[in-house]
């Protein structure tokens, strides 16, 4: 088992990366599925490729698996190029989106399929033992003789997981593995996959279009758009310092205010909205700087927005406030979510934690309130 190493900045030895994309481009005829993409996935990490349908996630996985070859660029495994090596010789295994179990084989024969391709073939006894262990691992002991059509979706999922893991691959590829499961089962499998990855210690590369899934399971995430990676980072890096509006919008929820940049320096920018309101915010770490006159946006997470009754005095450190009317109040258990309509900034979402409830406890839909935030808690970015 490999030591866990997800810190990108301290790794510089190429052998430490289970997967590296170096300027990878992939064309299907006229379609550019992947465009000049760079990616590094450290050994033993749980990495997700997150993006909307058609952005090139499956293509990336298929390039790693060896079902496709890059049009240009290099795909490496621990520093060694894999271009030209056929799929059946690569140390990676895949869990297919629609599972693809072999319908003519029973569960045991499905799981032992990989080891049976080795030469020399492992002895029967050893295969039996291995399959037994794998079924324990995916919590389906005793399923050896079941036929494929007798299994439920969740069970199938575990069987194909076992079928891949029995080969002890360096990298396990998962293409939207949970998309076909119902919500409850999906939550359960998310946690199981996460602990499974910790247990076996191999690199997992998960493809998903579900941000919640990616955020809850991954060590690192690459946000993809139109055949490219927009940003790679840990879930909290992506949440706290999204490099642009696309990422901010994709990861978690944000209030966006767009307008024309009226002032800018190397640390922060001020934009003026159509309604003549000036808002200031710093750039995210690694984000693009803005110049005066261009279109910009300021993102403010709902957690950063405070609200208080008109009669109440303004909380300290607030740089900006605006009057609004509550339209919805949603109780979320650990926090309360307020939907507020303002004249000048449209609809604004605010989430108030239970610990800060003293001020907002009695607020109800229809109430006029004040709302505001600290400049430092917003993020300035180009308006995509």
């Amino acid at each position, binding site marked *: 088992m490999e030591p866990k190493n997800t810190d990108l900045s301290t790794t510089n030895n190429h052998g430490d990366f289970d997967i590296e994309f170096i300027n990878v481009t992939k064309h299907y005829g006229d379609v550019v599925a992947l465009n000049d993409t760079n990616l590094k996935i450290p050994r033993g990490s749980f990495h997700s490729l997150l993006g909307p349908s058609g952005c090139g996630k499956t293509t990336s996985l298929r390039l790693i*698996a*060896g*079902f496709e070859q890059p049009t240009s660029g290099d795909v490496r495994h621990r520093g060694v190029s894999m271009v030209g090596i*056929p*799929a*059946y*010789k690569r140390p*990676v*295994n*895949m869990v*297919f989106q*629609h599972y*693809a179990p*072999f*319908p*003519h*084989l029973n569960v045991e024969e499905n799981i032992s*399929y*990989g080891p049976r*391709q*080795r030469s020399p073939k492992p002895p029967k006894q050893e295969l039996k033992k291995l399959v037994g262990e794998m079924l324990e691992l995916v919590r389906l002991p005793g399923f050896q003789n079941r*036929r*494929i*059509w007798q299994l439920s979706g969740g069970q199938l999922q575990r069987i194909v997981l076992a*079928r*891949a893991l029995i*080969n002890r691959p360096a990298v396990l590829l998962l293409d939207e593995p949970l998309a076909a499961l119902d919500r409850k089962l999906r939550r359960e499998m998310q946690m199981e996959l996460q602990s499974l990855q910790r247990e076996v210690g191999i690199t997992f590369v998960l493809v998903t279009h579900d941000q919640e899934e990616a955020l809850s399971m991954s060590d690192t995430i690459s946000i993809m758009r139109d055949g490219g990676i927009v940003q790679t980072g840990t879930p909290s890096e992506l949440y706290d310092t999204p490099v642009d509006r696309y990422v901010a919008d994709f990861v978690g929820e944000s209030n966006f205010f767009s307008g024309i940049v009226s002032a800018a320096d190397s640390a922060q920018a001020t934009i003026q909205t159509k309604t003549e309101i000036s808002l200031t915010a710093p750039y995210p770490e690694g984000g693009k700087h803005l110049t005066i006159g261009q279109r910009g946006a300021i993102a403010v997470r709902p957690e950063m927005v405070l609200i208080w009754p008109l009669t109440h005095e303004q909380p300290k450190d607030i740089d900006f406030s605006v009057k609004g009317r509550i339209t919805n109040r949603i109780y979320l258990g650990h926090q309360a979510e307020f939907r507020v309509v303002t004249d000048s900034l449209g609809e604004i979402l605010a989430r108030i934690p239970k610990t800060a409830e003293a001020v907002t406890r009695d607020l109800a839909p229809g109430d006029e309130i004040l709302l505001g935030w600290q400049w430092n808690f917003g993020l300035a970015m180009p308006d995509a």
Partner: protein
Amino acid sequence: MAKKSSSYVTTLLLAPMAIWMTALLILPILVVLVYSFGELAEMGGYKPAFTLAQYANLPARLTAFKNTLVLAPAGTLAAFLIAYPLAYYLARTVEPRRRMILLTLVIVPFWTSFLIRTYAWMFILGGRGIPALLEFIGIEGVRLLNTPTAVLIGIVYGYLPLMVFPIFVSLEKVDESLLEASNDLGASPVRTFLQVTLPLSLPGVATACMIVFILLMGEFLIPALLGGGKVFFIGNALVDLFLQSRNWPFGSAVAITLVVVMLVIVSLYMRMIFKPGKTQDVSMI
């Protein structure tokens, strides 16, 4: 109530089929069965009796039985060996746009009469056909027409489309991602074919082979035209006994024997191929 009326409808819908089967299949076979225990009338035809003499006389047509029991399986096998790669190519290799054209080409021969097409083969295989061409390049003394080889060629030609289609359908149904999964798990393309594609196409192969085999057991046109009276099938014996010699009782005995032989072979075959559970796995998914 609903159940009762629906079973009434079922009966009504099945009735034409049942009447058809009884009138055109079961009754004729019963008549033939009765005839086979009878005696030959003086002017030909049937004279009621109960004797096993006709069955005792079966060895007189042993050659026809032998030819049929050798060439029907051989023809099935030969057609299969040619049809499988063709079906594989159509289902898995050729690009979709050309697939339709090629599939149509496989069916086109059916637009003309089978008789005419088999006549055409008489010319191709006859003295002025392929043997003449071979002579032209220096290979002399090749005789094709009126040999078992000619019959076999005719069989493969005539039954190829019947063999190709069921196999094509079963190959086309094999999900591409299964082949990728096999590849992903370390199986080379050849091993993937042997362990995934081939087993999953077996139901189609079994169906195709059974249809072709059953039809071949009753074949008479191809041996009559391309075998030239030298390569006799049971079908030819039946034509001869019923229409020329008018020996109905003996013809009936031969026919009944053929039916029994076929029933035995086909039921053994079915039991071997369509084991319960085995095909279910393949067809369920």
